[in-house]
């Protein structure tokens, strides 16, 4: 199953490689990973998307917790949560396609943030599956490039990850 693991860790140079190293050393999957400092500049918050059986996810959270620089960790998928990912897609946009693409972007609540006479760059946020769905509706040969941040998330309501 897919899990979104969110962690608070010391904002130190080695911390990220410790997490990444743990995943490769123990053969765990990383689907995506993102990290940036929080409002407290000594802390970073990382979101990791991984897939694995319950046993594997249990080991992953335990092993992450053992890393000295990891302060707190939560498996967001264990409860109500909000998930968002940002994607930028550059597509070929010529002739009548231009209108069609604009309409599609509207349907997905995306916005066109860069325009040339041959292309559009569309910004889209949403759950990862929504972004997948958008890409599926675009014809493959129209997509020039995509970049995705990987999912970020927070627990809903009172579910808070704090030091």
């Amino acid at each position, binding site marked *: 199953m897919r899990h979104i693991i969110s962690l608070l860790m*010391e904002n130190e140079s080695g911390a990220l*490689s*410790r997490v990444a*190293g743990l995943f490769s050393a123990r053969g765990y999957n990383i689907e995506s990973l993102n990290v940036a400092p929080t409002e407290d500049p000594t802390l970073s918050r990382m979101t990791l998307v991984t897939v694995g059986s319950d*046993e594997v996810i249990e080991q992953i959270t335990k*092993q992450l*917790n*053992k890393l000295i620089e990891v*302060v707190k960790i939560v498996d967001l998928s264990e409860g109500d949560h909000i998930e968002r990912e940002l994607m930028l897609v550059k597509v070929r946009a010529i002739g009548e396609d231009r209108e069609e693409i604009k309409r599609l972007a509207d349907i997905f609540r995306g916005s066109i943030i860069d325009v040339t006479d041959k292309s559009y760059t569309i910004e889209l946020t949403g759950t990862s599956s929504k972004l997948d769905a958008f890409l599926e509706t675009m014809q493959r040969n129209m997509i020039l490039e995509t970049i995705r941040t990987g999912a970020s998330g927070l627990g809903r309501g009172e579910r808070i990850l704090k030091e």
Partner: protein
Amino acid sequence: MSVELTGAEITVRCLQEEGVKYIFGYPGGAVLFIYDELFKQDKVKHILVRHEQAALHAADGYARSSHNVGVALVTSGPGVTNAVTGIATAYMDSIPLVIISGQVPTAAIGQDAFQEVDTVGITRPCVKHNFLVKDVTELASTIKKAFVIASTGRPGPVLVDIPKDVTQQKAVFDYPSSVSMRSYKPVSEGDSQQIKKAAQLILSAKRPMVYSGGGVILDNASEALTELVHLLNFPCTNTLMGLGGYPATDKRFVGMLGMHGTYEANMAMQYCDVLIAVGARFDDRVIGNPKHFYSEERKIIHIDIDPSSISKRVKVDIPIVGSVSEVLNELIKLIKASKEKIDEHALKEWWRQIDSWRERDCLRYDRTSAVIKPQMVVEKLYAVTKGDAFVTSDVGQHQMWAAQFYRFNKPRRWINSGGLGTMGFGLPSAMGAQLANPDGIVACITGEASIQMCIQELSTCKQYSLPLKIINLNNRYMGMVRQWQEFFHGNRYSESYMNALPDFVKLAESYGHVGMKIEKPEDIEGALEEAFKLKERLVFMDFITDQTENVFPMVPGGKGLSEMILV
């Protein structure tokens, strides 16, 4: 006004403040300022090894035999890479070490400078934690953190990498008496509800089994364990790392379990109805294939300080995260106070079953052989040292015979590399054990292949007058490899014969030690007695043993615990 010290001075002062008596190391460019400071003081004594791997093993043997943090000092580049095997060895067995390594100056880092390696990167997967200190004002607190992290929770090696310029820069020295880290707070107290549940389950057991490991030794909990087992009259087995955690001569001890464990320990493990796992991690060499282990229904209580050890390979019913001693003492209190009593009848039946397994006499060997049987050497060593020696070992058949035939009644007497299985560990770790126990008897049981991996340390032993007794079980084979080739590779002894062996007697003598060669069974005891009388000397005893002897019982890889190959 507080004076400023250089980073090198600070490093040495920190070690003094920690009460470090010995530091095992080897000098080089990046650590020259630290060596200069060591030279100017005499509180911390430096032991000069002949290879950095040995520095780590010696610090490790020191830690294992004394419950102090072992400390090593190596230079950048090759100093560190040579040390990696020793660091990984300590990591796998959860041994508390602090390693100070030199690094190229901060400005040179990343420039492929002379003797530069990414030490933090190379050692990351085999340390509990590591630091690169770029600012001299953080040096003292970092070293403090290193000692705290190494010795608390599940212990392990911690490395502090110090660039050369940092050892020259100055800062006010202020050694913190404690440090708090928001991201590191090991627990030691177990959850009381879980402990209550465990007590109930224990009292309801009909076929109980206590399986204890290295955690008991690491936590100095053998008294608590012994009290609990006596109180309940349960059978108790130890892992290779747990030997000495429960007295081996007690009748409730059923021997070591696992791949080369006793028949009775493995059978009891497989057929018990309540298993109490104490500071042990269900290693693959211990329970064999988890699938086969699952085939029997049983309830498992697991006490371990590291949550990630629990339900890693085997799902357990009552996990208790906490230190062995605290949890066991809590359990003992509850059991003593409980109105419920053990089903004595069932327990008696269970003991009858275990005794019938014992009758298989699974460790028997030919005592009338005309060539020396390695088992006999260990038995005689046990007798001659009255079971009171610190015994280190290398890796191979001799390691298993040492574990099976030297009956350890006390913790921290059995020192071996279980998790990594590092050949070359025996001699240097014995040096550390001897320094930690200057009045103790230290014997290193080794093989002719293993001993050659750190043989250069005979020189260190001479320099510091370490009167070790080296018991070389010389079968002219990498016996453990040969055994696997015999069982699983059609007797094709590919590269496992030890050719061109040195004359170990002459070799020992050339290092200034005493050498002995023993070839007949009837000479074993006399030779040992003679050697142990030479209290001030290192004696290298080369026992020419049966080349064909194998270690039994044996659970072949991938099999279940009850599927042992017996003699």
